[in-house]
């Protein structure tokens, strides 16, 4: 999924059409969630996900996703189940990440309970190396609401962008509301 997203985004600057400026309140098409994107960032919608970046997805991106619990993942055969605790949902996400061979040197820094959109969820902080050997850091919040799973993820080059843009991510997180 991420590879498809990134591939699409790489192709986009040439036509620059699907990128739109982020700003104001964003509400998902099915009105299941809303949040306030960072000012001055660009956003791009694809397949139920919303990706936002300021300097390009290889520098930093914010990814908001909504998926049904039974939607299969790419790298692990596991999926979410109704009634899963946040810790168990976090395990599914972690297994998906760890099964992805593109993520070289995957290192889990933190795995803890956290709120997302007013719901009990989890947060994961992890790092890995990208294609150039650059260390990339990711902060991932997730929560199950009924038969859907919501996640908000911030990924950035650790040295240059992670700390710099972390505040933007926190603002998105604090404005995130799950409505259904």
């Amino acid at each position: 999924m991420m590879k498809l997203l990134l591939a699409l985004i790489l192709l986009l600057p040439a036509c620059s059409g699907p990128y739109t400026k982020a700003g104001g309140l964003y509400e998902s098409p099915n009105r299941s969630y809303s949040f306030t994107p960072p000012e001055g960032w660009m956003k791009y919608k694809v397949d139920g996900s919303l990706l936002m970046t300021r300097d390009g997805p290889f520098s930093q991106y914010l990814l908001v996703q909504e998926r049904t619990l039974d939607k299969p993942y790419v790298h692990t055969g596991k999926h979410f189940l109704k009634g899963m605790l946040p810790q168990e949902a976090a395990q599914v996400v972690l297994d998906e990440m760890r099964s992805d061979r593109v993520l070289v040197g995957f290192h889990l820094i933190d795995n803890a309970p956290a709120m997302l959109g007013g719901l009990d969820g989890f947060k994961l902080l992890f790092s890995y190396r990208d294609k150039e050997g650059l260390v990339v850091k990711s902060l991932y919040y997730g929560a199950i609401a009924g038969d859907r799973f919501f996640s908000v993820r911030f990924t950035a080059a650790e040295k240059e962008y992670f700390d710099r843009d972390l505040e933007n991510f926190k603002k998105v997180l604090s404005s995130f509301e799950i409505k259904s």
Partner: protein
Amino acid sequence: MTSIRKSIFILLLFFSSHLMAACLHTPTPPATDQASLSVEEELQARARREQRILEESGSIIRDEEIETYLMGVAEKILPGSSRERRFLFRIIEGTRMNAFAFPDGVVYIHCGMLSRMENEAQLAFVLAHEMTHVTHKHAFRAYEKRREQAPGWAGGFGGPDPLPGLGAHDTGSMDAYARDLEAEADRIGFERALAAGYSPGEVLRLLRRMNHPPEYEKTTDAIVLTAHPDMEERILRYEAFLSRMEAKGGNAKNEEVYRFHTRRMILRTARLDLMEGRFPAALKGAEKYLEICPFDAEGYFLKGEVYRQWGKWEDLERAKKAYHRAILLNPAYPDPQAALGLIYFKRGEKGLARRHFETCLSVSPDVPEKAYILGYLKECIR
């Protein structure tokens, strides 16, 4: 595809047994003159670079016991090889049934392959095949063949995409040459393993299993699917070898020795199967490990994890039983305590949940799930 992944992919393709082999009728390695030596040196330098990428990927398992064991089997296949330090064996973390060799004698084998093979005879045929790629300079010969076919092609040392097109999807003639090399590795490897006294029928058992793996073990791994597209052809080839040479082989299978030395790879592969959501394969792996190490708490914990994560309500009792067994074997093991706490917590049996969570924190105050456990305990007390 990242460059690291791309590099790994290219080297897997290039150095995998599909590509490194020679003609059935050219068993003698090519003479080494000065010019070829420099090409060989460059190939070896490139091999070292690729190996460094692999080593830095974090996917190499260093396990002295299994490496020494592999070296011992290699010594049986090619006496003197360990004294000459001609080969080095490395394990890659992964569930694939795959192995490949570099021209400098470093042979990589996936822990999934070690886990799923049944005995030393099967291992010997795999190692003998890979070692033949090295001893018969298949990488060098494939390189030379490529240059011969495309005189303008200067090779890829240091270029952005070294050795392009040597993969399985290149020209028909390169494919044919790669198949020839493959056939040579099969034949000479088979002869060497037979001469070492291994039971010849085991190679067919292994190939048939690789060709038709149990449904629960299947992966969607493109590399495995493309590495040996001619598996049926290989099976026929080995059947022909067997009909001619069966009498030359011995009876050695060394099943018990093999299972003992590979036990940790079995456990690792079962964990990977669980991570990748192949629950039946993970369960089989855990049970296989427990047959070898019946008093190992980690094996029981893994078995419990498979049952619990599978998500079937009826399996939770089996999970509990496995966790209790793990605790019985190692009372200071925090993980099964936490897992039992989770089961009881979800069932609303908060007294039992609390007892297990508290025990978990008392035996290991800094477990990675501590933040979750403290939250559960708050609710249990409420």
